């Protein structure tokens, strides 16, 4: 029974850890995209000829 409980606990930890790893990885991707887009916007603003 104890072995079973230990196995259940391990799987619980794995499921919660997997959730956070996937979500944080995607959040990292989104933050990177956001920084790139901001940089692209600044670059085009700077290269715009004066009217």
């Amino acid at each position, binding site marked *: 029974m104890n072995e079973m409980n230990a196995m259940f606990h391990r*799987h619980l930890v794995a*499921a*919660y850890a997997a959730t956070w790893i*996937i*979500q944080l990885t995607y959040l990292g991707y989104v933050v990177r995209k*956001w920084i*790139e*887009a901001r940089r692209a*916007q600044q*670059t085009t603003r700077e290269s715009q000829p004066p009217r």
Partner: protein
Amino acid sequence: MKLFRWLWFAATLAVLANGFRVAMYVVPADVNQGDLSRILYYHVPTWCGMGLFFSINLICSIVFLAIRNRNPERALKTDALALASAELGVVYCLVGMTTGSIWGRAAWGIWWTWDARLTTTLVLWLIYVAYLLTRRFISGPEMRVMAAVIAIFGFADIPIVYMSTRWWRTQHPAPVFFGGPNTGLDPSMMPALWWNLAGWLMWGIFVVSLRYSAERRQQMADERAAAIALEAA
């Protein structure tokens, strides 16, 4: 807007932290599955999030197709929201399949089985991955139209996923919610579910808003770059 977004993020982390505390230390463990049953508090909110964000994607895709000629500026905004919500839906779907697989390994002794619920869910995930790949690798003005059409057809799989445990005999348990008499969670488990549901939906709204803002900035930068190129020509 920026301050509101960061306040929202702080509130999300607080709700998720409390959800974790309630799920781990307040709610009693299941009589049969012990601690394993606590996976439910991340597994179910994930599927609710997936349903919500794929629904937003569907609405945005329909609106995009309807207004793309009349109001191109607003159509671009809805397209950015469609992309952001589809990406997060795919992420939630992946989390749901992963937590389900880990749960299944302990409860059933297998990581995966080709039953109707799991198979239709995998097909759903692949459809939306195809949607994202279409957007990434096809260029030209028709890309957004094509993606919107894929999204509308892809959404048809969601009711099939939801009904699969009622229509077919599956390894996956019968519906816990709205499954008729003698179904549903024990009231003592509900607080953990509500806190985590609120936390993961708030998380999703935060991430989608960030992704939407990135996509809008990119769209505006692309438009400006095109205008500069036209002026130079």
